[in-house]
C-alpha cells in the first residue's frame, strides 16, 4: 500500500508536470486558436492536479468533520489547496469560455483560425 501510494504520488506529480508541459507545448506551438485554447486548458488542469497533490496527505482523509472523524484533524488532507483548486477550476472554466467565444468572433472576423494570420494589430 505504501509503495503503491508512493508510485501513485510520483505518477500524479509526473502526470501533472507532463500535463503542464503538454499544455505549454500546445499553447506555444500550435497555430490553431482552438488548439491554443485546448493547450491552455490542459496546462490549467496540470496545475490544478499538482495543487491537489501538494495538499494531499498520505493516507489522509477528506477534510470534513464528520462522524467518526472528530479528532483526526492531523489525519485530514489540507483543505485549503482543494478550496483553491475549486476556485481555480471555476476561473479556468470562465477563461476558457471567454476564449472560445473570442475564437468564434475571430473566425467570423478573419475567416481563419491560424493565429499567425491574425495580425492586424502590430508594432
Amino acid at each position, binding site marked *: 500500500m505504501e509503495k503503491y501510494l508512493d508510485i501513485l504520488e510520483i505518477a500524479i506529480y509526473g502526470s501533472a508536470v507532463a500535463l503542464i508541459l503538454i499544455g505549454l507545448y500546445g499553447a506555444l506551438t500550435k497555430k490553431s486558436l482552438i488548439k491554443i485554447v485546448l493547450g491552455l486548458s490542459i*496546462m*490549467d488542469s496540470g496545475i490544478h492536479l499538482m495543487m491537489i497533490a501538494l495538499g494531499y496527505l498520505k493516507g489522509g482523509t477528506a477534510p470534513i468533520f464528520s462522524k467518526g472523524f472528530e479528532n483526526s484533524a492531523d489525519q485530514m488532507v489540507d483543505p*485549503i489547496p482543494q478550496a483553491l483548486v475549486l476556485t*481555480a477550476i471555476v476561473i479556468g472554466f470562465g*477563461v476558457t469560455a471567454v*476564449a472560445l467565444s473570442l475564437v468564434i468572433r475571430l473566425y467570423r472576423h478573419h475567416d481563419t483560425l491560424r493565429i499567425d494570420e491574425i495580425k492586424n*494589430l502590430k508594432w
Partner: protein
Amino acid sequence: MVGSPVLFVAIPLLAAFLIPLMGMIWKEFVRIIPGLVLAYMLVLSVSLIIYIQSHGTIVEVISGWGPPVGINLVFSPFSGALTTLMTFLGLLVWLYSHKFKRNVDYEPAKKYFILLMLMVTGSVGMVLTGDLFNMFVFIEIVSISGYGLTSFFVRRDSAEAAFKFLLMGAFASSFLLIGIMIIYTQLGTLNMAEIAQRMPQMDYHMKVFSLIFILVAIGVEAETFPLNGWAPDVYTQAPGPISAAMSGIVVKAAVYANIRIIYTMYDLQGAYEYLLIIGLITFIVAETAALKQERLKRMLAYSSIGQMGLAMIAFGIGTKEGVYAALFLMFSHAIIKSLLFFSGSYLVYNKTSKYIKHVNGMGKYLPITAFLFTLGAFAIIGLPPFMGFWSKLALLSAAADSNLVILVAVILVVSIVEAVYYLRVVNRIFFFKKRANTKPEKPTINAMIAMLSLAAIVLVIGFYPDLVTGLIERAADDLMDKGRYIGEILSKN
C-alpha cells in the same frame, strides 16, 4: 468609522448583479446605478482615508476568521490612497461613458457597465486584500472583465486584442498559481502578513522561484517589458474610457500587487534591482516604440507602458523617496493618461483605424478637447507647472539621492523621445489642415465634465502639489514600514 472596506468589494459586485435586474424595471437604471455605486465608493474611501489618519489602519476580517486563517481586507494609507484614486477614476470613466457612443443602447450598455463594475471590484479588491490567493481571484476577475470590455466593439479588431490579452492572462494565471503553490507548500499560509513574517524561514531557492513566478504573472498585468505585448493592442481596441480605466485602474492595481509582494512579502534585495532594470528596459522600449506609431491610442498605450516602467524604476530605487516618487508617478499618470485617453478618443472619434493623422486640424473644430489633450500631453512630458513635473522631479531627485547618476541621465534622454512624439501630435492638432474625410464629433456634456475635472486636477496639483503630497508621503511611509503592516494584521487575530 463610516463603513467597512468590505463594502468596496461587496457593493460593486452586488451592483453588477443588480444591473440587469434593475434594468428590467427601468432601462436607465443600467446607466445610473454604476454611477451611484462609484460615487458612494468614492465618498466611502475618502471618509475612510480621513478616518485612518486618526485611527490607524483598518484591518477588516471577513466572516469572523481572523488572520492568518481567514481572508482579510486592509485599508492602510497606501492601499487607501490607491482605492480613492481608483474609485475616483472609475467614477470619471462612468461619467465619461454614461452617454457615450449614441449607438450604444441598452443591451451593450448593460454588458459594458456590468463588466466595468466587475473590473472595479477586482482592482479595488487586489489593492485591499491581504490574502495572496484572494489576490489571484481578484486578478482573474479583472482579467476576465478586461477581456470582455476589450472586445466590446464588434466591428473593430477588438477580438484579436482581447484574445492576445487572454492568452497572456491565462499564462499569467497559471504562473501565479504555481507561485502561490510554492509559497503555500513552503510556509503553509496564504496570508500576506504571515508570509512576510515567516519569509526568512523559507528555502532560498524556493523563495526565488516563487518570487519569479509571481513577478512574471503579475508583470503581465503590470505591463513589464517582455510581457506587455497585449497592452498596445488592448488600449488601441478597447473603448476610450476603458483604455483609461486600464491604464488608470487595472495597471495601478497590478503594480500595487507587484510592489506589495516585493516590499512586504519578500526580503530579497535583488528584487529591487530587478524592478529597476526591468522598469528601465520597459521604459526605454516603450517610449522608443511609441515614437513612430501611426495610431493615436497605440501611441498612448506605449506611453502608458513607459510611464509604468518609470514607476517601477522609482520603486526599484527602494528608498522612501523612491516609493514616494513612484506613488506620485502612479497618481499623476493615472490622472493624466485618463485625460489623454478621454480627449484623444474624441479627437479621432469617427475612424475605426484611429490614425494619428486623423487629428489633423482638430484644434479648430474641437477647441476645448484639443486644448485638454494638449494640457495632458504637456503634463505627461513633465513640463512645469503641470502635475507631471512634480512626480518626475520626485523620481529624479530620489534617483540622484541614491547616487544613480546614469539612471537619471537615461530617464531624461528617453523623456526627450517622449516629448517628441507627444508634440508631434499636438502640432498636428493645431497646425495641420483637417483631412477632408474626417468629421469632428463634439464631446457630450458628461464627457466634457469628466475631462474638465481631470484637467482641473492636473492644473491644481501642478500649482499646488501639497494637496496630494501629504497623502502620498503617508502612503510611502506605510509601504516602507513592513513590521507595522505585519503587526497590525496579525494582531487582529
